[in-house]
C-alpha cells in the first residue's frame, strides 16, 4: 500500500532546506543568464524606451477621439461619457455645428488625465464610437506640462497618428439626413414638400 510518510519534518530535509533551495534557484538564474549571453535563448526583458512593448489591441491607454471619414471630429457632444465618468474628468462645451446635418459638436472637449482612472466607461458609454482608449501607455511628463488633454491633442497628436493610424476614422454608419437640413429655409413649405417620396 502506497503512502507518504509525513512523520518527518520536511524542513529538516536537506533538499527542502533554505540553503539548498537558494542554491537551486541561483543555478536556474545562472543557466538562463548563460543561455541568453550566448544567444541560445531570447530575453523577455524589453529595452524600454528604445524598444516599445506591444500590448494587445484591447489595451486601455490614453484616450483619443475618432474622426468622421471627412476628417472632422466624430463626437456629437452628448455628454454621456462625462455623465458616466466616475472621476468626473471630462469637460465638454457643446456648440452648434455649421453643418446642419450634424447639428451638435464639441467646441471644447477636455480630459483631465491626472484625474482619469482608466476605467474605460467613457468608451462604453459613447453611442457614436467617438472616444476610444488607445495603445499609448507612456504618459509620463514633467510638472510644467499641461495635464489637461484638449480636443486638438485628443484628435491630432502624433502618437495617435503613429499608433492608431487609419483606425482613427470610425466606420460607424452616419445617420441619414433629410435633404432640407442643409438648407437655411425658414419653414417646411419652401422645399415644396407634400407628395411622393
Amino acid at each position: 500500500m502506497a503512502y507518504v510518510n509525513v512523520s518527518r519534518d520536511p524542513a529538516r530535509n536537506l533538499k527542502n532546506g533554505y540553503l539548498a533551495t537558494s542554491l537551486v534557484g541561483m543555478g536556474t538564474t545562472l543557466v538562463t543568464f548563460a543561455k541568453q549571453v550566448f544567444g541560445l535563448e531570447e530575453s523577455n526583458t524589453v529595452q524600454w524606451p528604445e524598444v516599445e512593448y506591444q500590448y494587445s489591441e484591447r489595451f486601455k491607454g490614453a484616450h483619443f477621439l475618432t474622426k468622421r471619414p471627412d476628417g472632422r471630429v466624430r463626437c456629437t457632444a452628448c455628454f454621456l461619457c462625462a455623465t458616466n465618468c466616475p472621476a468626473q474628468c471630462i469637460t465638454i462645451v457643446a456648440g452648434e455645428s455649421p453643418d446642419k446635418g450634424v447639428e451638435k459638436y464639441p467646441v471644447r472637449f477636455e480630459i483631465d488625465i491626472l484625474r482619469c482612472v482608466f476605467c474605460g466607461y467613457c468608451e462604453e458609454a459613447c453611442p457614436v464610437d467617438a472616444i476610444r482608449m488607445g495603445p499609448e501607455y507612456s504618459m509620463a511628463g514633467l510638472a510644467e506640462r499641461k495635464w489637461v488633454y484638449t480636443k486638438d491633442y485628443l484628435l491630432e497628436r502624433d502618437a495617435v497618428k503613429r499608433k492608431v493610424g487609419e483606425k482613427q476614422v470610425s466606420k460607424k454608419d452616419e445617420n441619414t439626413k433629410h435633404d432640407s437640413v442643409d438648407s437655411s429655409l425658414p419653414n417646411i413649405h419652401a422645399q415644396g414638400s407634400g407628395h411622393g417620396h
Partner: protein
Amino acid sequence: MSNQVTLSINNQSITVPAGSTIMEAAQKLGVSVPHFCWHPGLSIAGVCRFCMVKVEGMPKLQIACNTPATEGMKVDTVSSDVKDAHKWALEFHLINHPLDCPICDQAGECELQNYYMKVGKYQSQMEDEKVLKPKALDVGDTLVLDTERCILCSRCVRFEDEVTKTSTLGIFNRGDQATIGTYQDRKIKHNYSYNLADICPVGAFTAKDFRFKCRVWFLKESKTVCPGCSTGCNVNLFQNSNQREYYRLKPRHNADVNGHWMCDVGRTMYEHLNASARLPAPLLNGETVSAQAALQAVTDALKSVSADKVAVVFTAQFTSEEYKTTLATLKTLLKTAPKVFVWRDESEKAEDFDGILFRGDRNPNTRGMMDVLKEQGVTPVMLKGDFSALASASAELTLIFGPEVEAGYPNLAKALARFVELKKAVYFGNTLSESAKKMWLRMPVKVFAEKNGTFVNFNGVAQKLKANPPVFVAVKGVDEYFSDLGKMAQATL
C-alpha cells in the same frame, strides 16, 4: 340630477364633478395613465391614442382623456391588455422617431423616453426605413423645430390656438408625411413661445436659449417665484449645482396665480443670477473692501449725520422681510423714521396687462413694499423720472436699494447718474453699470434665488421664496446686512 359622479379606478373609488373625464379622475386619484396629447391646460384632442384604459361593459379599450366618467363606471388601467395597448401604441409612435437622443436637448426629461423605459416594447418589429423629415428649422427668435422628432400630439397647435390665439402652427400633409410647421411666411413671435418647448412631450420644439448648453440631468430644480413682474408666476429654477450656474426657468402650476404658463420675459430671469453678471464684493470709493469694513463705514456715516439728513430710496424688488428689517433697524438707530423715496422707472406703465400673465409693473413686490411702509407708518415720495424731490431733501447719506432685474428699468443709467451726484450714496445692488462706478459705496446683495422671503403679487397673494446656496458666499441679503449693522452700532455705542 347630481353634480358628482362616483367611479372606481383599479377598485379604488373616486368622486369627481359630472362631466369630468376618466383621465381627470385618474389624476385626482394619483393613478398615472400614460399620455402625450392630453395636457391639463389645453383642450382635449384625443389624437395620440396612448391613454388606453379598460372600461367594464365596453367591448374595446377606451381613451381615458376623452371618455366622460359616469356613475358606477369601473375602470382598469393595469390589466395585461391595457399594458399591451400601451406597448403597441408606443411602438407606432417610435416608427419614424429618429435616434437623436444624444443631440436632443429634451433627452432626460422626454416623455417618449420615460414611457419607453416604463411601458416600451424594447424590441422593435419595424423593418422599413424611417421617414426622413426636415430638421433644425428656425421657426422664430426663441425656438428650433425638428419635425422628425415630432409625434404629432398637436399640443403646440392647440396652445397657439387657445392660449396665445396667434395660430401660427399647423399639421400639414397626411399619413407618415404629416409634419408640424408654421404657416407660410409666419414665425412664432409672441411673449409665450417657450411654453411650446415645455409642453412638447418630445424634443420637436427646443429652446434656443437653452440649446446645447447643458444636459438636463445635471440640473437641479428649486421652487421659487419669478421676479420679472408683479404677477409673480410660480417657477422652477434650474441650476447646475456643480458649476453654481443657473440655466433656465420653467413654470410651475398654480391655479391661483399663473396656471400652467409663464412668459418669455420671465424666462430670462436666470441671467442676472450667475457670477459673471454680478458684483462680487463691496466697493468703497471704487476699491474692494470686506463686507465688515463696508458695513462699518455705513455705521460710522449713520452716526455722523443727523437723523433728518438720511434718505432711503427703495425699489420694489426686495422681499417684504428685507424692507421690514431695514426700516426697523434705521428707526432704532436714528430714533426716527428716515425719509423714504420709491424709485420707479420713467417709462413704466404699471397698469399695463397683456391679457395673459405679463404686467407693466416690472417689480415683483410693489404691494408687499407698500404694505410694509404703511405698517411702519412711513409715507413714501415717488421718484419717477423726476428726482428733484430727492435732491431737495439735501440728504447727507442716501441708502439706495437698486433693482435686481434691470430689464424692468430701461432708464437705469439716467437714474444712476442722478444718484452719483448725491453726497455719500450707498447703493445696494449688483449692477455692473458704468454709471454706478462713482458711487461712494456699492454693496452686492443676494438675488431672489438665494433668499428666503416673501413677494406679494399684484393681487395680494403672498408667496414664499426658497433659498439656494449663494453664488458668492460672502454676499448677504439686505436684511442680513442691516441686522449686522444694527448689532455693530449697538456694540460701539
